[in-house]
């Protein structure tokens, strides 16, 4: 009889703070067949699919939830080197820009992210030779990236000689602040392209970080370690397609049309709200985050430069004209705003409705203050 595969409703579970596989994982929204090869897995015969298990269900934790330093001392065979003190947090932080936890933890059943020794045997002499032992697994994992950027395979770049261990500062200091050394980011990057009418793209990197508040991982994901760490920058030998080249930008910008918003034959200036939208921020809104006004994420259109979008309706009673640097005299102070300000942005007032001979800013409806 063929048993139907059940789709259970996802029951909210705390998946952190547990070791090994989550007991209630059968009630999660996962097909049994994702991980099990038989129809009815039991405790005695869980029939977990054999390795490699990269494509099985996997979870990601936040870097801060991961252990800070791991002392790798489960391999007792060798007495040449001291146990490696592995800066797990620093690596976890970097993995945000790569593939997350799965960059290294290639098998994560529902539950907590599991450590290497859950699957890889500590003994080299063993009967199951289908996966490397723990020592091999660690080294294959580490060296695969480490030798990529340095070409260095010296044992002492990770190990200390037994009996000659130094205490590393980062191991003893605690606290949960980032431990990766400060990353230097460029202010702007100029790209030369082969677009005829717009050879140059000037990318304002700092603006994206600081002004637009993007996190590194918002743009940099699935990067290889080499991308940042290579001593000699390795150029990708592959020719990238136009689509691949625009990939990083196109998650926010429309790169299909409107080429000239980025491409030009000269160096373009940085982002200027007044130029792009006609709404000058410098006078009153300079210190605000974009998201104070643009409240829907990644949605910047639709505010139409109207004050009331954010401020509501202004009347002579609820608006203190003094903040504009001009205190209205008694006569003007009781008019509705629209009597003088015809535009929705309340810029230049119009005097000619009432006064034939007066005009702003030659004549003022009050007194200037500082």
């Amino acid at each position, binding site marked *: 009889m063929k048993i139907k595969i059940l789709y259970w409703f996802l029951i909210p579970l705390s998946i952190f703070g547990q070791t090994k596989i989550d007991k209630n994982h059968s009630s999660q929204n996962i097909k049994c067949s994702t991980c099990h090869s038989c129809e009815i897995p039991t405790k005695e015969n869980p029939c977990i699919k054999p390795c490699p298990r990269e494509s099985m269900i996997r979870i990601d934790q936040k870097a801060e939830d991961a252990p800070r330093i791991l002392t790798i001392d489960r391999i007792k065979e060798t007495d040449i080197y001291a146990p490696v003190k592995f800066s797990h947090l620093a690596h976890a932080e970097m993995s945000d820009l790569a593939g997350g936890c799965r960059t290294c933890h290639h098998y994560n059943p529902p539950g907590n992210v599991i450590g290497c020794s859950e699957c890889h045997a500590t003994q080299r002499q063993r009967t199951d*030779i289908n996966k490397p032992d723990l020592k091999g697994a660690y080294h294959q994992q580490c060296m695969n990236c480490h030798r990529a950027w340095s070409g260095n395979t*010296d044992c002492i770049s990770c190990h200390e000689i037994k009996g000659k261990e130094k205490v590393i500062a980062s191991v003893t200091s605690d606290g949960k602040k980032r431990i990766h050394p400060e990353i230097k980011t460029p202010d702007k990057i100029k790209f030369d392209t082969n677009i005829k009418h717009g050879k140059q793209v000037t990318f304002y990197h700092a603006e994206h970080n600081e002004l637009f508040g993007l996190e590194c991982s918002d743009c940099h994901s699935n990067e290889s370690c080499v991308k940042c760490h290579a001593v000699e920058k390795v150029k990708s030998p592959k020719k990238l397609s136009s689509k691949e080249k625009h990939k990083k930008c196109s998650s926010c910008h429309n790169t299909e049309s409107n080429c000239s918003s980025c491409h030009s034959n000269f160096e373009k200036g940085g982002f200027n709200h007044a130029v792009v939208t006609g709404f000058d921020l410098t006078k009153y809104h300079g210190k605000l985050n974009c998201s104070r006004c643009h409240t829907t994420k990644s949605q910047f259109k639709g505010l139409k430069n109207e004050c009331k979008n954010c401020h509501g309706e202004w009347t002579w009673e609820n608006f203190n004209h003094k903040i504009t640097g001009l205190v209205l005299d008694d006569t003007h102070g009781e008019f509705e705003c629209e009597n003088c300000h015809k535009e929705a942005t309340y810029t230049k007032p119009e005097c000619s409705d009432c006064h034939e001979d007066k005009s702003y800013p030659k004549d003022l409806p009050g007194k200037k203050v500082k």
Partner: protein
Amino acid sequence: MANQSRRDFLKTSALLGAGITGLTSKPVKAAPKNILDENRMGVLVDTTVCIGCRKCEWACKTAHNLPTQPLESYDDRSVFINMRRPDDKSLTVVNEYPAQESNSFPVNVKVQCMHCDKPACVSACIVGAFSKEENGSVIWDGDKCIGCRYCMVACPFQVPAFEFEKALQPEIRKCDFCFERTKIGKLPACVEICPMEVLTYGRREDLVELAHHKISLYPEKYYNHVFGEYEVGGTSWLYLASRDFSELQFPKLGNSPAPGVSEAIQHGIFAYFIPPIALYALLGGVMWLNKNRKSGEEEQL
């Protein structure tokens, strides 16, 4: 384990059966030396994970009481400038072949005796100093060796080395698959030390299966060939690589056992009815002359 215990179980039941029927009271003896044991061991060398740290070279020397530099000196990668061969001072060496693309790694290849299933050295040796053991090792017995060096000529991998520098009792030297260690249940020294587990020690049959499994899992990573599966009739040491083995200086060999050459020496001679004793006398004479000339040269130095 499952395999092992099932076999043990079969053996035991065979024994029991035999005991009951009273046909034999002797324990079932495993295969004699010249028949390949199905449980013979081997090593799968996955060159795609080797980092060229040369710890295996150090471990091999240490395990065989050969003089060696301190372990730290093995980090020096400048040795890779030259291609090296195993010799009487290093039973195994690691070579490096440059990366083909800027974003790939160089390929490091450990070289040692392949422990052939149909070893040419065994066939070539006229006094039977070489033998293929039950556990897969091809080893050499100094007491029998007359120093004729036929093994060196016969080996398709040019492995056996001769201690040319020694005037008195020079020995043939080659990787012995750490026979003295495996005999007492230890791993071969190189297998034990390798940090990357490039070297997987196991039943040859399982290793062949594992090698093909790896290729099928990562076809983009591996060149689709298990070197040693069929070469010269199969070898106990098997190799996986990311590129064609001929680019890594593996000899191009047929699948039939290579020893043709050397067997022809013996069999050819027998075919012409020259009794073995005459052959030994002749060869002995040649050896004696050679040896005398050699020591004479050395005295002059």
